[in-house]
């Protein structure tokens, strides 16, 4: 009784932002609705909430602590608006807003506030002669969407960042605000802590089977389609043969690099090729390396997240002249995603030379550490898949982000929640990212994939 009247008294958020997600626990708002429904429907997320909680049982036992292989915690942690697809820019803008107000959204009474250690240093994208026109048109789109990006000539580049060698750079774009990098682990912990405080149950195990029921329906054109509903998910407990059948009303596939396998278990893609039934979820794991090196004469505090025209990237890490960086391999050089072993030759051959050419100080450096992580790589068009599957009616996707999942996660979570609760996208229109596009062949081509 008192609770209801207090919520009524609070009324609308004074900022009128209409997001309404930062009042934890109250039943009138969106977060509250989510937790209510979660309790009622016991939704099963082979993935978990919006983040990359996923089962690791496809791997040998020593790797099976949750999150050790999750892309989130192995990520370099960058967030940028410098994309070419407007929806990607919007997703990233929403997410940065979320991150800035994270202690209002994810506040838990009596727990310390979160510090995601955000470095607002921006991204610097360098383009050669070939890519300059594309860069310029991308910046125009980004500005239209509200990103704060400016273009720089090689001269301006040399003045602003004297440690850059602008040879070969025709144009550069620099994000002044809302871009940078942060600690993905604290975001993950913050989200877990908050949803746990709201009553969500976490369980750990491997999803081995989906039990679904089928229904036949006819399309307007008279074709017969089989609609499926997942009723039960079998979760196999670690190190045992037992499994727990979990009844569910909704399944959200946020399994990151393993979403493709999960989707196959649910029957996505089992049908003659070329039909909707036969369209698989084209997400597969792709291994990417990240190297940490020390260079005492390297660029200083002002260093942004630099992405060279060659695709190699680096950013500052901490105050001790340490830098993180890497490069995406070409299709032919794709490493085997069987394990997360690091190829150090790759650094010598493919990462170091372009970076040393761009930043002469990097000619002498010392690699301190390296690790590998997976991209949930969408082989179709390297953009996310969000929304329901047309045939398995209660399965929703939130995967396939191919390396920019972390920075879009809060916005995607919002989108999936809206889809589940309202049946359509309300804040950001992600209809170009629906599953249908794989069958229809409509690629959403993103130029700036790192």
């Amino acid at each position: 009784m008192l609770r209801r009247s207090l919520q009524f008294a609070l009324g609308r958020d004074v900022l009128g932002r209409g997001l309404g997600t930062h009042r934890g626990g109250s039943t009138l708002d969106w977060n509250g609705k989510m937790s209510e429904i979660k309790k009622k429907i016991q939704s099963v997320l082979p993935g978990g909430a919006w983040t990359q909680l996923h089962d690791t049982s496809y791997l040998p036992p020593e790797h099976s602590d949750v999150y050790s292989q999750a892309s989130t915690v192995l990520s370099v942690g960058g967030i940028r608006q410098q994309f070419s697809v407007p929806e990607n820019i919007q997703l990233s803008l929403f997410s940065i807003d979320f991150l800035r107000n994270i202690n209002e959204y994810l506040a838990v009474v009596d727990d310390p506030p979160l510090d995601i250690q955000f470095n607002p240093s921006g991204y610097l994208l360098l383009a050669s002669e070939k890519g300059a026109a594309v860069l310029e048109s991308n910046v125009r789109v980004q500005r239209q969407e509200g990103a704060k990006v400016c273009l720089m000539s090689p001269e301006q580049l040399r003045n602003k960042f004297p440690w850059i060698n602008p040879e070969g750079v025709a144009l550069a774009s620099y994000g002044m605000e809302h871009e940078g990098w942060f600690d993905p682990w604290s975001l993950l912990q913050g989200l877990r802590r908050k949803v746990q405080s709201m009553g969500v149950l976490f369980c750990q195990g491997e999803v081995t089977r989906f039990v679904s029921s089928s229904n036949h329906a006819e399309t307007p054109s008279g074709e017969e389609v089989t609609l499926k509903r997942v009723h039960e998910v079998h979760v196999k407990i670690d190190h045992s043969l037992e499994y727990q059948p979990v009844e569910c009303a909704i399944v959200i596939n946020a399994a990151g690099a393993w979403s493709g396998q999960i989707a196959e278990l649910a029957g996505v893609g089992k049908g003659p090729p070329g039909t909707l039934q036969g369209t698989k979820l084209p997400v597969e794991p792709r291994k990417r390396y990240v190297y940490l090196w020390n260079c005492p004469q390297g660029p200083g505090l002002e260093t942004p997240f630099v992405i060279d025209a060659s695709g190699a990237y680096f950013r500052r890490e901490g105050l001790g002249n340490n830098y993180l960086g890497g490069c995406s391999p070409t299709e032919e050089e794709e490493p085997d995603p069987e394990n997360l072993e690091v190829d150090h030759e790759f650094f010598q051959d493919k990462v170091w030379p372009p970076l040393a050419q761009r930043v002469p100080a990097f000619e002498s450096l010392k690699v301190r550490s390296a690790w590998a992580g997976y991209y949930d790589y969408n082989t179709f068009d390297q953009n996310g898949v969000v929304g329901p599957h047309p045939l398995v009616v209660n399965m929703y996707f939130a995967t396939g982000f191919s390396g920019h999942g972390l920075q879009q996660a809060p916005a995607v979570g919002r989108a999936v929640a809206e889809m589940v609760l309202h049946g359509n996208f309300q804040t950001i229109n992600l209809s170009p990212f629906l599953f249908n596009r794989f069958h229809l062949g409509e690629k959403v081509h993103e130029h700036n994939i790192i």
Partner: protein
Amino acid sequence: PLHLMAPVWNQGTRGIHGLSKAVAPEDSQRKGRSLLQFLADHFYDVQALREYLLRKQVLKVHQKNRPFTHIKERFGPHAAGAYFILKQGGAVKFQGKEWIRPNTRGRFSLDFLKFPEVPVEAVDASGSAINYHGLDNLLALKELQSLWLRHCPHVDDWCLSRLHSLANSLQELSLAGCPRISERGLACLHHLQNLRRLDISDLPAVSNPGLTQILVEEMLPNCEVLGADWTQGLRLGPEEQSRDTASPIPA
């Protein structure tokens, strides 16, 4: 030529988690369960009341930082910015005029509204509740030369990333005593190429004040940086000092 140094592959740290200083621990063991917390855990009403009170505090800060659009439209950005600062309890100096401060009752003269074209030269918003949104009012002051934001509890790294709009005019900036500013926000100050005086002393959230000061000085070569004494980290502790001055062991 690439100098190949002996590589040291350290497989210990997986991801940047090893290097991060994440605040939230896995299971937060609450130190000393207070009565209030006990009540909140057991009664929904008490929990709701606590959440309400917390929410009210946050709303109060937002309310203080609301924009005064009607003043901006009528009198222009300088007058609106000045009004905002004076409302917060800060002080404003227009070009060619004296400092305007609110009196102990929070009242101030509205004479400046008669001269809407006169730009604001200096702002002292120390101790005010200005935050990321309230900063909008300051960023419109395109001829601002001095800005003091000492001991502002809501000025954080995100706010510093917005200051680049003042790069053309800003010459003096003081951030002393702001509890939320860390070295990550200070890295954004490199946009302020006209800055000549910067005060970054007494910033509790900066992890390594001495090193940070050196890096900021390198980043802004034309700027005088006041901050922690760089020998702070090198200062010997009392036992070490006595050891140094102790006489050598006699032969």
